[in-house]
């Protein structure tokens, strides 16, 4: 992204032979990425850690509960290391994290790492599916809206999008369940799997990745796979609706900007077919800022949609971290924050890479 890149005399599209200069640049990039990853995660840990220590919630009480005597309380306080000075607590925590130990969650009595391995794949499935729906429907919607600006297709798309923005997700989720599960019986109920499939999953499916969909496919348990996908559709559609509303609105505005540019007029004058002008020339350029929008929207879904996860009894990361927060379970909160932070950084990198693919100038 330096000026040197832009002035690259070879220009885009030409075969590129990796030069030693290119290699060292790649190495520098990797190094700078790793460095920024480390710095960001460290900062994130520090801030979360400090917030966790200043909020007026007592993690000891959360562990020992209502019945504890003063002696049990003190013992638990020592056990949790909370009697030590704050800097020492932090150093110990970071040391543990570096060795892969995120501590034990009071909320579940399990290692935080195991909890995250269990909840994160569920959130990943939901967010990915929702984002795909958002892209597949949102981009064409936005393009159509821009092309028919002010006319009825635009109005319809805008109203649908507006509904997506303004309806509380909790309510939308319940209504969707009521209609498609309760009344029509087309979608399966809340939860990750039906009872029978849950048993098959429990007894016959090997856990390779922690993702029900992937694991059941890899194990060839197609009944479970179908059921898992079926269970995913409704919550993903509800989440995807919001994602779609956002993506289509942004697409529309980016497209309007592009359609007003001179190169569009030039292309039309040259006799380029209209579909090509819109879907290739204009959309191609609108994709550049759109990638950032999509990646950010994906990242925010990966944080987990607590309300959707609640309504659909979906055991995801968002629900986990939120419950942990209310229960003053700081190990779980810190662990969850770390994962979400890392995801943001990785997605940022992904967006840089996509950027480079779509926009030659960024190479």
């Amino acid at each position: 992204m330096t000026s040197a890149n832009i002035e690259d005399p070879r220009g885009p599209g030409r075969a590129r032979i990796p030069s030693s200069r290119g290699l060292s640049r790649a190495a520098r990039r990797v190094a700078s990425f790793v460095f920024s990853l480390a710095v960001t995660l460290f900062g994130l840990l520090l801030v979360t850690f400090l917030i966790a220590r200043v909020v007026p919630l007592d993690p000891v009480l959360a562990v020992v509960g209502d019945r504890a005597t003063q002696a049990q309380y003190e013992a638990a306080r020592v056990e949790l290391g909370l009697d030590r000075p704050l800097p020492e607590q932090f150093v110990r925590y970071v040391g543990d994290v570096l060795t892969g130990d995120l501590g034990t969650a009071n909320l579940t009595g399990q290692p935080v790492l195991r909890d995250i391995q269990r909840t994160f794949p569920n959130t990943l499935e939901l967010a990915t599916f929702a984002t795909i729906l958002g892209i597949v429907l949102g981009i064409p919607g936005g393009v159509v809206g821009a092309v028919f600006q002010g006319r009825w297709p635009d109005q319809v798309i805008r109203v649908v999008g507006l509904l997506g923005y303004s309806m509380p997700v909790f309510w939308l989720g319940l209504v969707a369940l009521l209609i498609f599960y309760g009344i029509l019986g087309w979608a399966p109920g809340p939860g990750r799997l039906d009872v029978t499939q849950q048993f098959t999953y429990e007894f016959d499916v090997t856990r390779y990745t922690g993702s029900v969909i992937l694991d059941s496919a890899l194990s060839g348990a197609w009944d479970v796979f179908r059921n898992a996908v079926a269970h995913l559709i409704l919550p993903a559609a509800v989440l995807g609706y919001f994602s779609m509303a956002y993506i289509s609105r942004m697409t529309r505005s980016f497209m309007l900007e592009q359609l007003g540019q001179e190169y569009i007029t030039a292309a039309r004058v040259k006799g380029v077919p209209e579909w090509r002008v819109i879907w290739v020339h204009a959309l191609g350029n609108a994709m550049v800022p759109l990638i950032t929008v999509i990646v950010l929207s994906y990242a925010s879904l990966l944080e987990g949609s607590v309300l959707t996860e609640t309504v659909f009894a979906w055991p995801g990361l968002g629900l986990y971290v939120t419950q942990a927060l209310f229960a003053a379970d700081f190990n779980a909160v810190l662990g969850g924050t770390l994962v979400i932070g890392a995801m943001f950084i990785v997605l940022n990198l992904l967006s840089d890479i996509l950027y480079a693919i779509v926009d030659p100038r960024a190479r």
Partner: protein
Amino acid sequence: MFNLRTPILAGSLLLGTALAGSMALAATPPDTLVIATSIDDMLSMDPAQSFEISGGDQINNVYETLVDVDPVSLQPIPGLASEWSVSEDGRTFTFKMQEGRKFASGNPVRAQDAAWSLQRVVKLDLTPAFIITQFGLTKENVDQNVRATDDMTLVIQTDRPFAPTFLTNALTASAGSVVDMETVMQHAEGEDLGNKWLSQNSAGSGAYTLRSWTPNEAIILEANPNWDRAADLQMKRVFVRHVAEPATQRLLLEQGDVDMVRNLTPTDIEAISNVEGLKVQDSLRGLIYYLGANQNNEILKNPKVVEAIKYLVDYEGLTNTLLKGRDVVHQSFLPQGFLGEIKDNPYKLDVEKAKALLAEAGYPDGFPIEFLMRNEQERIDIGQALQGTMAQAGITLNLRPVVGSEALEIYRARNHELTLQTWGTDYPDPHTNASVFASNPDNSADAKLVGNLAWRNAYAAAETTPMVEAAVVEQDEAKRRAMYEEMQRVAQATSPLIPLFQQIEQTAMQANVNGFQAGGAVESAYYWPVTKAAAQ
């Protein structure tokens, strides 16, 4: 919705129909009990550690205790011990083990297992340990004082004479579960006596074994073929699915995807009680709502003021509206269902009487007071209702709703004024509540008896503390019962701990499900008596 033809919905419909196919008429497997409920409180399956409601429900079906509780009458009955006796001095309890009982592993259930299980609770010293250690058992003496004299005989020696029913009742709690020593010790790590392994696994002799527990997701129990009544067990599996949202629970029940749901709101209960094929079962549980008036407060330490407050609660009104189907009026500290329960509720809303009492106390125009509670909807609603009735006598309640753990912190530090709290029983003996509501061995601030409710309210309980001490050692059951009745009447008249309501649990289920027992005030849920008639 169709007319909108929103692409996303249409898309989801298409995909949904394509994939849903065969799931139109869902019914649960005939040999599986499927329950949707909230299990997010569950922390461990180890009976020496578990102290949560959800954990207790599973443990009650996976483990057995020396003394059991009958699922129908909810009275103590012989469990793994067939009989027991108490020595003359009331300090030595001898239990005879049942013949021929086996753990799920196939190992025989011996007195050594029972002794080791109790020793383990004391040595691990986790939350429920006090239920066992209160008999004078310590890490140092437990190996001598709880011992197997042979494979079939267990002897427990207490530090002083105790009421026999006190010990046998305490042994019915989860902490009294008998675990399979050999199996557990194979998985012990360091000094943990198998605690880590047993948190996630089971080694009991009960109707089921734990197949898996995924926190906040699901629990699967499987029939234990070595259980003595295994042949009669109809539900070969129990599947407890974590569903936090009541509206979602209701949908699952109405669709027939689950047999039973346990956290519906009164509105949901009312709606489904008219639905054919569904039914609702009530069970009075051990949870009590009460007010605590801090006796360190200048105003609240006046007994007339406390009495006036007792007349300023609209007991009937609240249980008929806000708490309908959830609570009943209950003005004594032992829940109904406990030994020594009393059912008289002498107080009702009487503003004039309260005004007269306040005038006598020197507050004819009332006073402002802070009202601490957890920021949960039901409690806020109750707080607002109390605000209304108290205002009629001039008392201004300044509501202070805070997060649960913060409320507890304030309360344990005696930093509240008037507070709304709940209390659940710890084990099915009257001493569980008597010891915290009516007994305060040392009211000084330095004593820090933070687990004791009387202490938290700086209430010396001078009259009832000796009564509690006497009742817990009384050898005669009838006399013991009378003692609890009497001390509750004293507390009712004088205590600044004011019991208001007792919780009802409403379990909604398919009409073909029979035999479920939520456990009443004294036990956890029973799955194993459940049968399902063939679905219509």
